């Protein structure tokens, strides 16, 4: 009896495998594709030529004033960034006291990193450190005026320091406020619901800049005579209220996606409203809207630049301010400054968006 032996599988056609196969499939599948590839490659070549030429080949790297950057062929003026770097990070914070800012940055990173790494232990202790201890510590250290530290007025704060203070305060304040507003908007109580809807819709309907104008021009009018906050504080309040309205809508999306059966099952087990919300509804709802929450954070981080319009000097504001320095006035100073600031903002936002994708995958309980 003859056993049936299948003939061995033939190898894949040569032109569909390996690097060449990849090129054929992804770059020149059809004649139209070939034309597109050529056009795209030409565009890319032109762009890289411009960018590399500007940032490296024709750029100036050393120098102490504008004369270093006044060349025949124009390129980036990097010495400008180098000379102003301290200002861009700390603003007018006194140089002798900058260690305090550095210490706060370091404490923040030490607190935040283990929080972001899922495998790191002691999450609870860490959270207490980050949300309880760190804000007090940072506030005391940055403003001073106690424990023998010299007082530094917030009007001297600037640069990345202000950007981070506004962004982090906004992020920390907007999440609980937003959750409260979202719960209020879905509450059974008409008065509470109406108040929450009014708040959310008004803040979402107007531009942040008018809210900041309101905070900086009108807030003093709303308070009794003699009571006043400094400008940074007023902006912080404006930014926090504004972003909590957006956060509320994101959280509401998550709340609406929870099947009614979950709440009913909790009620059947005799759980109270707060217990149901805390243990059943919010954990599921928040998990679902992680991308939305991070997007709101990213938006908030970018929106911190608006404080420059009401006269605070965040990173962009301080870069803008130093363009007026006559000893660095060159045709390329502006673009160099913007590219630097843009890169810093981009790095923060891009990192946040990548982290959100990572968390989304990690938190996903879908079987796949």
């Amino acid at each position, binding site marked *: 009896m003859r056993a049936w032996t299948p003939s061995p599988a033939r190898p894949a056609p040569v032109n569909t495998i390996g690097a060449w196969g990849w090129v054929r499939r*992804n*770059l020149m*599948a059809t004649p139209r*594709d070939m034309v*597109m*590839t050529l056009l*795209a*490659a030409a*565009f*890319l070549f032109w762009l890289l030529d411009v960018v590399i030429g500007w940032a490296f080949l024709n750029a100036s790297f050393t120098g102490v004033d504008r004369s270093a950057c006044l060349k025949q062929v124009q390129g980036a003026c990097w010495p400008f960034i180098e000379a102003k770097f301290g200002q861009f990070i700390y603003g007018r914070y006194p140089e002798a006291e900058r260690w305090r800012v550095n210490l706060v940055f370091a404490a923040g990173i030490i607190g935040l990193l283990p929080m972001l790494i899922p495998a790191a232990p002691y999450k609870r202790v860490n959270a207490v450190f980050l949300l309880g201890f760190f804000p007090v510590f940072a506030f005391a250290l940055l403003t001073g005026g106690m424990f023998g530290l010299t007082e530094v007025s917030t009007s001297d704060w600037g640069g990345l320091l202000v950007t981070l203070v506004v962004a982090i305060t906004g992020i920390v304040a907007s999440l609980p406020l937003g959750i409260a507003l979202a719960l209020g908007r879905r509450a*059974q*109580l*008409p*008065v*509470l619901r109406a*108040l929450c809807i009014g708040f959310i819709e*008004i803040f*979402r*309907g*107007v*531009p*942040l*800049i*008018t809210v900041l*104008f*309101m905070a900086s*021009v*009108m807030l*003093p*009018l*709303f*308070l*009794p*005579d003699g009571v006043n906050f400094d400008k940074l504080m007023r902006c912080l309040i404006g930014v926090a209220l504004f972003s909590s309205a957006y956060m509320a809508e994101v959280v509401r999306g998550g709340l609406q996606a929870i099947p009614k059966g979950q709440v009913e099952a909790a009620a059947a087990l005799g759980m109270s409203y707060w217990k149901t919300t805390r243990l059943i509804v919010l954990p599921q709802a928040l998990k679902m809207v992680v991308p939305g929450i991070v997007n709101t954070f*990213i938006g908030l981080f*970018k*929106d*911190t*630049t*608006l404080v*420059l*319009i009401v006269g605070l000097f965040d990173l*962009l504001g301080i870069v*803008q301010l130093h*363009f007026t320095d006559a000893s660095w006035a060159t*045709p390329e100073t*502006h*673009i160099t400054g*913007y590219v630097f*600031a*843009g890169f810093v*903002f*981009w790095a923060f*936002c*891009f990192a946040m*968006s990548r982290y959100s994708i990572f968390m989304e995958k990690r938190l996903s309980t879908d079987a796949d």
Partner: protein
Amino acid sequence: MSYFKRRDVLAQLVTAALALLAVSWLVGNVMSNLERQNISTGFGFLSERAGFGINQTLINYNEDDTYFRVLLVGLSNTLLVSTLGVIFASLIGFSVGVARLSSNWLVSRIAMVYVEIFRNVPLLLQIMFWYFGVLRNLPSPRRATAIGDSIFLTNRGLILPWFEAGAGAWVYLPAIGLLIAGFFFMRRRALRSRLLTGAPTPVWRIMAGLALLLVALLYVFVGFPFSADMPALKGFNFRGGLVVIPEFAALLLALSLYTAAFIAEIVRAGIMSVNKGQTEAASALGLPEARTLNLVVLPQALRVIIPPLTSQYLNLTKNSSLAVAIAYPDIVSVFAGTTLTQVGQAVEIIFITMMIYLTLSLLTSFAMNQYNRRVALVGQNT
């Protein structure tokens, strides 16, 4: 649930009382503060003389006009930049979103890099980059960069050839409106008759014929009252032509490119939400790629795209308020800025500005919701 527990009623009463108390406290503070600082109240200032110039006005305006006129000028400038921004952002956004899904590796990568760069950099920075970094660095009018011999790039703005309308030119406007309305009417009838009988109607050819006829009629009766208005260098600046001020160009450019990055992601998500079987079925029927996209994929994707697209349009309108940073005369800049500084009545002015943005937001959402309803309904019927 239509009944309330006693505790709930109590809680509501307390909330309402607290809210009222807070509001009355705030209003009381405002009143006493205004009185103390001798700031007048009321909207009387709107009829006072403004006394400052504005460098882009769509309606007639001069320094002797009132603050109310200033409000209208600012509003029209906001509407102009938002409308054009929405159009450009949609065009760029849809193209990039489609390119992002292209089977061509290079094209999709370029689209991805575009999206990642433009949406992760603050809009205000982009506006300032284009304004202070690029457009203000252009050569002066005497050394202007010329494209062809009628378009000029200068640090005073982009100068384009334009036309001058003579007597009777207004007749052309309703005629064009009629033509556009006719086109949509024709298309609807053509679709209906095609669904009933299967016979196609050459809509475009008929419309081209009608347009020619209309132009011929207009030419016979009112002539052609338009003349070209070419820009020319006279002394230190250009005369004639249409001057697009650099503030406007920078704002429009930044708003369009920034919002387009978000629209591209929305379009990509929308297209990806359409079942792959739809594309495969279309290609099995022999539809070419472009028509598959236009006739099969996009109509279905629109249902997913429209709601987030609406909020992008709203964002763009609200973001146009960043104009104040480069002094483009939008409503925030000339009204909540210059007017507020001159008059000092912060409460009224900020209130009016916020109300206008709220109204714009509500109107846009209303219009987009109407469109959304139509798109959604079509989806259910097929």
